[in-house]
Each structure stands twice: as structure tokens, then as C-alpha cells.
């Protein structure tokens, strides 16, 4: 199938997954991921070009509900578990960091 063996980069993948790995952990995670990919990579060798993928039962029979407007979650309830709110919205730190005042 002409696939070249590619290597995972724990550092790059952790950036994609938004999980900050401390530098000391990167080689450890790198080695764990390589070993897991070695194991799951056994299926790479199979010739499955003619096989249709199967993504699960729900794709085959997805029941639809009536297209009718329904009440959604209460705002206060929805905000109750958030770490920071102003009572109406979720609050988050600034996108570009704290501004100098």
C-alpha cells in the first residue's frame, strides 16, 4: 500500500491536543506512544482496500425526532459548574494575555 512508517511526535501531538507536557515528561510519553502505535500498527499491514469501513450501529439507523422547538437548559443551571462566570456568561482569560494597564 506504499505507506511509509511515520513517527509520532509527543511534543507536537500534545500541542494539537492542548495538553501541556512538562519537558521532562516528553521522552516518557514519546516512548509510551511509540510502543502503543507499534501494537495498534499491526492492522496497517492488512490489505483492506476492498472493505467498507464500519463506524458503528447508529450510522445505520439514526432515529429522528419531530422537528419541534423545545425548551433548552436553564442559564443559571448551565453556569452553575463553571469556574468563572458573571452570572450571565462564562468568563475566560484574555485571548492575548493580560493587558498592561
Amino acid at each position, binding site marked *: 500500500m506504499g505507506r511509509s512508517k511515520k513517527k509520532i511526535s509527543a511534543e507536537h501531538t500534545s500541542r*494539537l491536543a492542548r495538553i501541556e507536557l512538562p519537558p521532562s515528561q516528553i521522552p516518557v510519553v514519546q516512548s509510551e506512544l511509540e510502543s502503543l502505535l507499534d501494537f495498534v500498527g499491526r492492522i496497517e499491514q492488512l490489505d483492506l482496500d476492498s472493505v467498507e469501513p464500519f463506524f458503528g450501529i447508529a450510522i445505520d439507523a439514526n432515529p429522528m425526532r419531530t422537528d419541534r422547538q423545545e425548551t433548552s437548559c436553564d442559564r443559571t443551571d448551565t453556569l452553575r459548574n463553571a469556574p468563572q462566570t458573571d452570572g450571565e456568561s462564562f468568563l475566560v482569560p484574555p*485571548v492575548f494575555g493580560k493587558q498592561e494597564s
Partner: protein
Amino acid sequence: MDLSSFNACQLLDALESQQLSAEDCVRFFLKQIANQNATLNAFYTVVEESAMASAKSVDQRRKKGLPVGPLAGLPIAVKDGICTHNVRTTAGSPMLENYVPFYNATVVERLWEADAILIGKTSMDEFGMGSSTENPHFGGTLNPWDHQRVPGGSSGGSAAAIAAGMAPIALGSDTGGSIRQPAAFCGITGLKPTYGRVSRYGLIAYASSLEQIGPMAKTVEDTALLLSSCAGHDPRDSTSATEPSEDYRAGINRPIEGFRIGVCRDHLENGLSVEITSALKQAIDIFESAGAQIVDIELPNSSNAVAAYYVIAPCEASANLSRYDGVRYTERAPTDNLDQMYSKTRADFFGDEVQRRILLGTFALSSGYYDQYYLQASKVRRLIQQDFETAFNGVDLILGPTTPTTAFKINQCRQDPLSMYLADVYTVSANLAGLPALSLNCGFDPSGLPIGMQLQGPRFKESSLLRAGHLFQSQTDFHNRRPA
């Protein structure tokens, strides 16, 4: 009265005939929890006050002759990955340590309508990712049969609670074996229903195309009782099946004469200890004596099931767990900007195994690798589904082991993720194909640890599994034995 040896159906009989009050019943199990939980750590949260209030209400209605639900007064434990209104639901994660849902999962609502009584939330591997319930954040759960060993996972708390007599019945969830493997390790009965049979609304998602909520109990009849109250279409879960559910307990006594039971010799003879093979062969003899016909079958692609599973499940997890970003769900690492907040929150509040699976899934779905991993694994999934379809043309159910070993020792697999993943070798296929599968105790190894037998059936044929399992339990007493 010592109720710890009562199964759920017996308790229900005693409650219905008013030989036992719901208050006494709930009080007994709360006391069992109080006595044992400090050692076993099967419950993260116990809801004494609301349980006693609900029990009182059931007793009052019964005394007045008012209608009560089909599970009225029956105490139930619920895995902590299933949302319970105003009761903390952690999914075993530091990320959700203080999360209190404002809604009930559909299954919990149905149990509430049936007048079952929630007594507590049970321990689990973080987000269901694990096979041992050695949760580093909330502490490990011990196997009641041997405190040096794990109860299995991820529904290890529910299984340990039943085995130790802390709850008569419980809900678990099963993404790759998380009901059946702990059921096998703890010597109880556990059923993973057909995908779509039970609503997943309110189940904290790990791998949505694979997981199902299901019953765990002492006996097959108890699991049938609980499934009857939980199953059925739910408009709030678009993947829940419209196929009508049934009263699974009603037909459970029907004979299995003429049943064709498939046995994959490769699964029975390779990779198992002598004791497990021998226990399964004895089980086969029992079914044969009851009039079933044993048929050899092949499942040629099952050897690739674990590899396919550990691509598909992490891929789905990487998407599902992206919602934990420090904005909505209780925990947030203090940082100066938004991007750092995401990355630091997820680093600080996800455990190692969850991070590992998110990274694996993120990589497998990243640009350039999708075909190589996810698509290829989804094709293997098709082959596994077709293997089952072919097998079920000739048999009514398939008998085999639930696990390759009995309960392993604490810390035995923790440092080696792959060895932990291989504990799922016989269970993941049913999740990949969306089929129902039942695990029940079929013997003990020389150390006195329970051995699990798995029965797998075609879609929506839970009733066949339950009939066969009930027949087995009516002719054996393994399910009645309890840890010393």
C-alpha cells in the same frame, strides 16, 4: 435480618409482600457501606439522607395502598460516570471532582420513576479508561475476594459493591468490557446490552459509538429485572434504538432446548489458564445436558480486535474530551491567556491514562494519519461485525471466556498500558460490533478467585443470553457464593 445474601429479586419479593420495609432495606445496605467502604473504596459518594427519604416515601405509599413503581424500595448503586441530579458525578476524574449535574441521565430518571432508591455513586477508572479501578486520584478499589487484587474496571466499584453485599444491584457502563470484566473478576453477573438498547443520555462520554449502560447484579434474573426498567427508546439520545424492549424477566425460565451455542475453539484452548478452560468446558457440558447443541465456529478477525479498539476508542475520546477546557466544568488552572488555560487545565486535571489516550487519538486523527489508523481500524471493525453475522447464521449465541485471567494483582499492569489493554481481548469485539454480551461466574481458580464466562448474542437478543444464563445459574451455585 442479614440481607447481604439476598439477590435483588428476593429483596423485591420481600418488599412487595411488606415482610421488609424499604427503610429497613436501605438502612441495611447503608450500614454495609459504612462498615466496608473505608477498606474497599467502592463508593465515591453515598447519599444517605435522600435514600432514607425516598425509602420512607415508598413505605408510606405502600401502606396507603397507593401505586408504586416496579422496583419500589430496591436500593441501587450507580457508576459515577452516569449523571445524577444534584449528586456529585466525577467520572473518576480530577477534572470533574466537584461536578454536580443539574439533570439526571435517562436511566436514572427511569429508575427514579420505577421507585428504585439511589444509595450512592461507585468508583471507576477515570472516564472509564482502564481495567482495574486503581484510580490514582480517588484511590484504588479492592477486590472483595482478595484485597491484594483489583476488582477489574472500569465499573470496578459497582462490581465490588455487589460482591461485598454493599448494594444488591448496580448500573455500570461498558465501552470495551467495563461491565463484563469487573463482573468476571468479582464473581457477579453483568450485561452489556445491544448498542442503542439503553439510552446513553447523561452517560459521561468516552467513546460514543462503543459504549452502553447496563445492569450488574448477583444473578442473571436480577440483570433482567433491571434491564426491563432501563431499556427502550429515548428521544434525547439519537443513537437509542426504536426497536421495542421487553419484560426480560418474564421469559427467562423458558427452556433452551434446541439452542445452538457457538464455541470458538481457538478462544477456548489458546491463551487461557487450565482452570478457565476447564470451567468453560464444564459449562458447555451443562448446556449440552439441557438440550443445547454445541457448534464450532470461527471468528477469524478477533485477533485484531484489541488493536482496532485502541485506535477507535482513543480517537472518539480525543473528540469527546475536548469539552474539558476549563470553561464549563468546575476545574481551571490559573493562567494569563486562553490558550494556556486550555493546555494547563487539561494537563493538571486529566490523569496519565486519559492524557495518553487523548494523545493517541489526536495523533491517529491528525492530518495525514486518518487513513492509516482510524479508517483502517474502522475496516477491521467491519470484518469483526461480519464474522459475528456469519457465526449467528448458524448459532443463537456464542460461549467463551470473559477474560484471559482471573483478577490480577494491584500494580501488576499499571506501569504497562499494553498489558492492561490485553485484559479486554475477549470483550472488545462485542462493543465494536454493537452486540449484547453477558458475563457470569462459572467457577473458581485454585486461589478461590472467580472465573467469568461470556455469552454473546445477535443484536437485540438479550432475551436469549438471559435465558441461557439463567438456566446455567439454576443448575449451579457459583453465583450464590460470596467472599469470606
